[in-house]
């Protein structure tokens, strides 16, 4: 087995790993590799950080207050 194989397999596992959809066996396999491989470990850590960063960056823009008012006005008037 070449050194590149487990790493590219680990790369394939990264998204399902973080989405927590791997089977227990697959997860254990990935964790074993991550314990041994600094190359992949750094990239996994980076990905985790990146997801949080993207989410925060994208969610920062709040809903305009005027829109909130307009949505309120769409409500059915009380009889």
């Amino acid at each position, binding site marked *: 087995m070449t050194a590149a194989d487990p790493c590219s397999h680990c790369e394939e596992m990264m998204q399902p790993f973080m989405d927590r959809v791997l089977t227990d066996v697959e997860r254990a396999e990935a964790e074993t590799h991550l314990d041994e491989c600094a190359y992949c470990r750094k990239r996994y850590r*980076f990905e985790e950080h990146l997801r949080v960063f993207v989410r925060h*960056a994208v969610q920062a823009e709040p809903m305009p207050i005027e829109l*909130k008012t307009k949505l309120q006005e769409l409500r059915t008037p009380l009889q």
Partner: protein
Amino acid sequence: MSETTREPDARRLATEARDRVRFEEDALALSDQVYRVARHLVGSREEAEDLMQETYARAFRSWRSFQPGTNLRAWLLRILTNLNIDRGRRQQRTPDQQPLEESDYFLYNRLEAAADGGTSDEQRVVERLSQNDVVAALSEVPHDFRDVVVLVDIGDFTYADAAQILDIPIGTVMSRLHRGRRILKQAMAETAVGGEE
């Protein structure tokens, strides 16, 4: 008309009015969360605002078709994505061809290479991207992929919810999500270190 038929009728109307008020309040309480998703499903703030108003108008009209106890935020987003598709808003923005995305380690590798063996703190490099850069990178992701990324990664929907909202199979949600994230990382890499290839 006798009292006996009028009274249950009045009670029914009162119950319905109460249910409707509660529905409208619940829907409005979710509007911030719905907006955050809507904002990134379309190209501009103006489009997002129009779409939100159309969605809430439709939701308030057809509130009876919402099944209490099910996911109201998903229900609202299903209306919103359908309206978005009906309007053909998405058509003019995205070309037919799908970009070839790089691998999952791509962004990290690019940032590392750009640091040129020096003291690279890749996380810091990414944080140098502004909010606008990330928003712009996200808007470069073709809509089929972006819809899924936005629903799952920003809207926090499960794969199953996203599948229901978009009316596509779960397997399609997963493959679009994985590809969409790669395309997003590629767009971010171009913003962070330039697309000098």
